[in-house]
């Protein structure tokens, strides 16, 4: 699937561009496709959301960018003009953690339980930026303050288990920022947190984007998190990008039936009481199944014969505005089918 990237050449604001990126796993049972034909361009200073359910390939896609997947990576990715995928492992030493940093879901497993917050933060700056201990300590304290950890001077000596879940996630964000990365990838950063803490962490990330011009990739299964955070939104299903464009457009006037159904399946306390979440019967196709078709076809109520014989290309349609692409043979017309959402 060859897809022109609308924002690659005009303006040239793109920090990271990937073309036709794929991730495959060779298994005894055959080749499993985790990601296929993913093309995207991250724009500087913006929040790009990637939303999808389990098995949609959203984590594999961003892990492939820095060689964190064990699968075979095809296609290409470039960071500021430099090819980063697929490249040999050692070529990524200056990219991973330095130019592209990650924040993972569970800070308790991502942080080393034997080392203090200070040691773990300072290590990033001494390793990547060649700062001395004093310089690294100063930077660590500065960042702990910026992620709004109260009493950072004493908390910096804490071990991870002495901090609450919210505080640990703040430490993870501070650690991601230690090497002044160009892109931060946050993979379900608030999924393990309570709602009150989730909103504070998301609010912090949003402020960091606004004030520091951080380029953020935010991965979540939760449409509502995207509604708060994303400027640009990518919707994935079964390893493919099925829709992408401005988040506000996708969430209020989606063109892909899956995006519409995903919104309608999300429980919403701000919708009228009788707007019950509507599920999507059927199952995700297996990663080893045939892919010469629309992968949502078996669960789609707009399905036609062509959906089962040809994969729909990702592109603009009559109903979409510039920068809004959809991969569907029968996309929803603009402003149609608001099934109780906004």
């Amino acid at each position, binding site marked *: 699937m060859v897809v022109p990237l609308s924002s690659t050449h005009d303006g040239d604001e793109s920090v990271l561009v990937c073309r036709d990126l794929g991730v495959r796993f060779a298994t005894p049972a055959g080749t499993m496709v985790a990601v296929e034909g993913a093309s995207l361009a991250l724009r500087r200073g913006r929040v790009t959301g990637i939303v999808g359910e389990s098995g949609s390939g959203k984590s594999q896609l961003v892990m492939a960018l820095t060689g964190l997947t064990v699968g075979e990576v095809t296609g290409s990715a470039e960071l500021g003009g430099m090819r980063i995928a697929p490249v040999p492992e050692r070529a990524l030493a200056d990219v991973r953690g330095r130019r592209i940093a990650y924040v993972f879901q569970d800070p308790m497993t991502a942080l080393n339980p034997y080392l203090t917050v200070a040691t773990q933060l300072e290590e990033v700056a001494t390793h990547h930026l060649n700062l001395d201990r004093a310089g690294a300590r100063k930077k660590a304290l500065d960042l702990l303050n910026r992620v709004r950890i*109260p009493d950072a001077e004493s908390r910096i000596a804490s071990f991870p288990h002495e901090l609450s879940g919210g505080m640990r996630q703040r430490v993870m964000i501070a650690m991601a920022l230690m090497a002044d990365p160009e892109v931060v990838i946050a993979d379900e950063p608030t999924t393990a947190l309570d709602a009150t*803490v989730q909103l504070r962490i998301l*609010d912090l990330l949003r402020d960091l984007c606004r004030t520091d011009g951080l380029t953020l990739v935010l991965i979540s299964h939760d449409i509502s998190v995207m*509604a708060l955070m994303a400027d640009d939104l990518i919707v994935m299903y079964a390893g493919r990008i099925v829709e992408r464009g401005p988040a506000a457009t996708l969430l*209020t006037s989606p063109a892909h039936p899956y995006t519409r159904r995903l919104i309608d399946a*999300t*429980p919403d*306390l701000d*919708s009228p009481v009788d707007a*019950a979440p509507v599920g999507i019967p059927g199952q995700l196709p297996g990663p080893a199944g045939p892919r010469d078709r629309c992968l949502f076809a078996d669960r789609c109520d707009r399905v036609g014969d062509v959906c089962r014989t040809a994969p729909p290309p990702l592109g603009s349609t009559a109903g979409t505005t510039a920068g809004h692409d959809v991969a569907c043979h029968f996309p929803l017309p603009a402003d149609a089918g608001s099934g109780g959402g906004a």
Partner: protein
Amino acid sequence: MSEGLEVRALSVRYPVGGGVFAQRRDVAAVTDVSLQVVPGETVGIVGESGCGKSSLARALVRLAPVSAGRVCWDGQDLTDLDEDAFRKMRPDIQMVFQDPFASLNPRMRMADLIAEPLKTHHPNMPGSERRKRIAQAVDQVGLSMEMAGRFPHEFSGGQAQRIGIARAIVLRPKLLICDEAVSALDVSVQALILALLKRLQSELGLAILFISHDLAVVRHMCDRVVVLYLGRVMEEGPAGALLADPLHPYTRALRASVLSRDPGVSRGRRPPAIGDDLPSPLAPPPGCLFQTRCPHAAPLCATDVPVQREIVPGRSVACHYAENIAADPGWRPGNQTEVGTSCRMRSA
């Protein structure tokens, strides 16, 4: 004698420590909780992690130790029943757990998984009757007997949770305790399981105790809601009214933190003016448990435990100043002289 579940002033305490050096202490997971669930009704238990939701549920079926209070079922006091008598009524109360893969034995086939509760509670049931009951339960949860020979790993998350529900309803219970029963599922599947639970409830007249951290799901499922914080009831009332117009500062903060799928709504959300950190349950604060995070805390809150009281018909709240806050959401005590505790009121 009331029908359904009646919990009176229930407390659950776990012993902790007691090693060579550590003093043995008790941690209060649930304190003085009273609630009722009648047939056909769904009551939600909400609160953040560590609020005692699961301890409460587990105490009802003796999976957690009851240190005080009563659990009554259809007017019968279960608290003092001996093991044999408790086992006899145990089929009436069944649980559905969060992670279907963790709660299903990976080496058992679907039909055997659903047969297991029958074999445990009705060992003398004839095989033909047992097979009939299994087929009925499989049908009720929307699975097919063609899958009877499959192992749990051959099912999707939603299907596995259907097996978990089939295991519960095959005993024809009257009360279903759902402990975060849909939290691990994708929303496309979650909505289907919620619809299944609602259908089973109307078909079987089930009472449901629905434990969840997700207020949007709770509003959809529940008739009434009980809000727990550090093991105590903060507020109770009809789901719609409680979530539309919360009375307790804690419920207000929870409600204000829920995001919407509508960008226009979500982007207007600001973090509530409460601190991140739950106090340690080993050293709960004196007075109101919520006073260390409450933006309205007054000196009285640091000394006196607020009593749960009805301030609107059908709605009760455990807050000294609920009326003041209801009248003015920005209400603060006039004179702030803190007594022995810190009151953190950082705002975003």
